[in-house]
């Protein structure tokens, strides 16, 4: 048994859910790109999916405690890579987000999410349920804050924001006290004006477009207007695969990537939306149920951290399509086109499987 793969306690239902959502995404990528210069993109996504499955299986065989034991080095390496990308990475579309690996470009910040989850999880090792100290709060903030600033500088505010739910989940699980929440809130309010000056012009424009959608129908507001039109025109049953005029005629920017859910909703209607929401909800709830039975708090937090990031991304991505959140570059997990995002999910899934193997049984 030691030399072969062990599928004992492998969560096939979770794995099937993930494949199902990814399959729906690939179908939609096919629909929105087939008549464009990006035709064939869905095949790339399939390759990433296959690679992801392999990685899930491999990682699931590792003992997560071993990884947690080496997390300081991994974390340090991640910081180094983020710094290197920022300083020396190729400039694509005006940002430094990627490193070249073979023929692929890899978005390091996606993998950094996983490292931060593990780093926070490691902090829970043998912590027990003692009181949450100010020092722990500071450490938690730094764990996510340092890479967060590096990523935000790329600039990739969207991905940097996805570190937040890890911190929030960490603080919540560690038992953050009311006074600490109030102090953090106060600091947040005081920092808001400063944050405004740190934002880049396009980011400010998105915020303004979110606050006053009617004033400016160009740029970001135009995007939201168009995605809303797409989603609304889908109706109950959708316009049919390949028949969404908004997505097919290019009125939705990046309809295969960040805005894939608008294209999906247009072509599949509210019924499709409902189905996908149910799938995501089952996926997330199953992760949280798994967290109940993990062997220890560290393992439990790997599931909670992973679920919190996925939930944050799904909620924000889907919400910004209907104007609930300002436009930020946050992809929809499993459905948006993009290899790095797939790697994050499947590596994370591997860790989840690893945790589930050592589950606690009463």
């Amino acid at each position, binding site marked *: 048994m030691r030399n072969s793969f062990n599928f004992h306690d492998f969560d096939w239902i979770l794995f099937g859910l993930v494949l199902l959502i990814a399959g729906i995404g690939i179908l939609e990528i096919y629909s929105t790109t087939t008549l464009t210069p990006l035709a064939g993109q869905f095949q790339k996504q399939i390759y990433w999916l296959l690679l992801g499955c392999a990685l899930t299986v491999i990682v699931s065989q590792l003992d997560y405690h071993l990884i947690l034991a080496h997390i300081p080095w991994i974390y340090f390496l991640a910081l180094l890579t983020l710094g290197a990308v920022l300083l020396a990475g190729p400039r694509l579309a005006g940002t430094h987000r990627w490193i070249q690996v073979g023929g692929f470009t890899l978005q390091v910040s996606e993998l950094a999410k996983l490292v931060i989850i593990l780093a926070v999880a490691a902090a829970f090792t043998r912590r*027990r*349920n003692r009181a949450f100290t100010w020092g722990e709060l500071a450490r938690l903030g730094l764990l996510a804050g340092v890479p967060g600033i590096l990523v935000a500088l790329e600039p990739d505010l969207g991905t940097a924001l996805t570190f937040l739910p890890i911190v929030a*989940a960490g603080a*919540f*699980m560690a038992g953050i006290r009311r006074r600490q929440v109030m102090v953090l809130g106060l600091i947040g309010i005081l920092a808001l004006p400063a944050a405004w000056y740190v934002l880049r012009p396009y980011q400010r424009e998105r915020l303004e477009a979110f606050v006053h959608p009617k004033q*400016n*129908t*160009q740029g970001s507001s*135009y995007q939201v207007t*168009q995605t*809303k*039109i*797409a*989603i*609304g*025109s*889908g*109706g*109950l049953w959708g316009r049919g695969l390949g028949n969404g*005029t*908004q997505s097919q*005629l*290019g*009125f939705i920017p990046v309809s295969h990537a960040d805005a894939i859910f608008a294209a999906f*909703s247009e072509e599949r*209607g*509210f019924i499709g*939306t*409902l189905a996908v*929401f149910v799938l*995501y*909800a089952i996926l*997330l*709830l199953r992760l*949280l*149920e798994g*967290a*109940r039975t*993990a*062997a*220890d*708090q560290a393992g*439990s*937090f790997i599931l*909670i951290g992973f*679920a*919190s990031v996925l*939930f944050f991304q799904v*909620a924000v991505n*889907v*919400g910004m399509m*209907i104007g*609930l959140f300002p436009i930020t570059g946050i992809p929809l997990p499993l459905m948006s086109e993009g290899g790095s995002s797939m790697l994050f999910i499947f590596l994370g899934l591997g860790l989840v499987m690893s945790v589930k*193997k*050592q*589950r*606690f*049984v009463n």
Partner: protein
Amino acid sequence: MQVRFPEDERFPSWKITFLEYFIAAAFVGLLVGYWRLQVGQHTQMLEQAEHNRIRELPIIAPRGRILDRQGRVLVDNFPSFTILLNRENASQLRDAHLEMISRALDLDPGDVEDMVKRSVKLPRYQPIVLKQAATLKDVAFIDAHRSELPEVDVIQSQQRFYPKHSVASAVLGYVGEVSQADLARPGANYRAGDLIGKFGIEREYNSILRGRDGMKRVVVNSRGQEVGTLGTVNALPGHDLRLTLDLDLQLTAEAALGDRPGAVVALDPRTGEVLAMVSHPTFDPNDFTHHIPVATWKQLTTDPMHPLMNKAIQAQLAPGSIFKIVTGTAALETGTITPDFKVLCDGKVTIYGHTYHDWTWWTLHGGHGTVDLHRGIVVSCDVYFYTLGKMLGIDKIDYFAERMGLGHRTGIDLPDEDSGLIPSPDWVRRVFHHPWWPGVTMSVAIGQGAVQATPLQIAYVIGGIASGGDFARPHLAFGRELENLGVDPPANSTVRFPLHQTTVRAVTDAMWGVVNEPGGTGASARCRGLNVAGKTGTAQVVSASLQEASHSAEYRNNAWFVGYSPSPNPGIVVAVLVMQGEHSSVAAPIAGDVIRAYYHEKGQTPNPDQLVSQVTGKAKPGAAPREP
């Protein structure tokens, strides 16, 4: 491997439960948002999606051509491009865009902004015309900037073209962009930027020439590129319109008048068909088809000789001695005199205590001796007609002048015809608030004073008298052809005012004498082998004494001649006005040229194109402009 861990190693269960409810609640909230959009606002959103992808492009109906009576093309079209601005997506109409567009298309940014502002009230789906007759450079620019400027479209259109340039331009008129006033008119079926007839035939028969624009519904992508067609409503081209004008005769008349300011009208008095109509100086209608250059417009509007006026129907001037035919006819018809009534002319006559001079007084200091009606007309004796004027009285002169077509419009199918003026005691009382001075009757009797007539009226009146009292309404479009096009032709085709045979013979014989007898004032209109008759007129613009004192061109006499052939019952009557021509002898040969061309050279003009360039000074008539 199942290991037992202490309870303390695990997170409190309620925290995970809390997270689960939190997630479930969030999804329910998102679902409500999607429900409201996808089910609640489905109809509006679907409509907006359709608006996004469907664009309606007009298909401009080509305007009908205008032809001469033999079917030769006077006004044509050639294919060109029109650039449209779509206003459906207001966000795209940002100032920066408009400025970029206007700079690239050589338009005035202010004009474009105004145009957009003015069109605010029009339905948004109606595109507005940014530029007519776009150059290839403009089209290339639009094609190259499709993605940045999705609001701009290029469509095929037809550009109005006048191959003969200024030939007959006062009659044909010109087209221009529809005005704000036209757009505001109730029931007006125009878009901003549409071309409509602004002057002349182009305006009079705009509804026939214009046709109906079609429309193409196309699917466009987000960059404004057409990716498919949903449906097409074909354009209904405008109807061609054949005019009574004869290009050969028109060219002859234009050449005969030459550079002199004035007008020539040739009518067939039997039918009222206008065979030629010249007004000079004039304009090149090609200048108006798109934005007319400011300098050209300034020149046209400030020229003291009013190039934008059709002098054949709008120059209201004293007809001078030509009016003696009206006075003479009135005298005979009322039985006031017989043709052999004689008057001794010694160069002046004193009536009501005022001395009236004959025109010979100023040059010869003498008179015509004893003259009868015939001789009085041939030598244009003023004293004879002063005498008739006194005998007739103003009321009778007025009655005949009005019944024979003066003082009111002839009803020709051209816009803005002027009515001329026959002064009456009523009119004097109304305008000047004093009674009629009997002495003024003498001036009226010889066509001076306040008497005013247009060249068209002169041809109409003389043609009618020479035809025995049949006054055929002048017209440029054939009534039957209008009927075929579903347009009601004007009703009053011929006004009958029967004259006695003896009157007609006496007057026409006298007019024959004007041209053919020794001492006749119109000898220079004589044509070999043709029976030409006519009457001269030299109309003072100011009093003779002021004229003596000043040599300014404005005060020079207007020269008139009206000629016809054969006499009586002519087939053609030609009225000529040479403004500031000083003496009627400059006008008579012009009429002679036209009459000669009508009878001798019918359809035999050696090289019409050469004549066109001679008349217009344009190098290559008939060829469309090279660009685009």
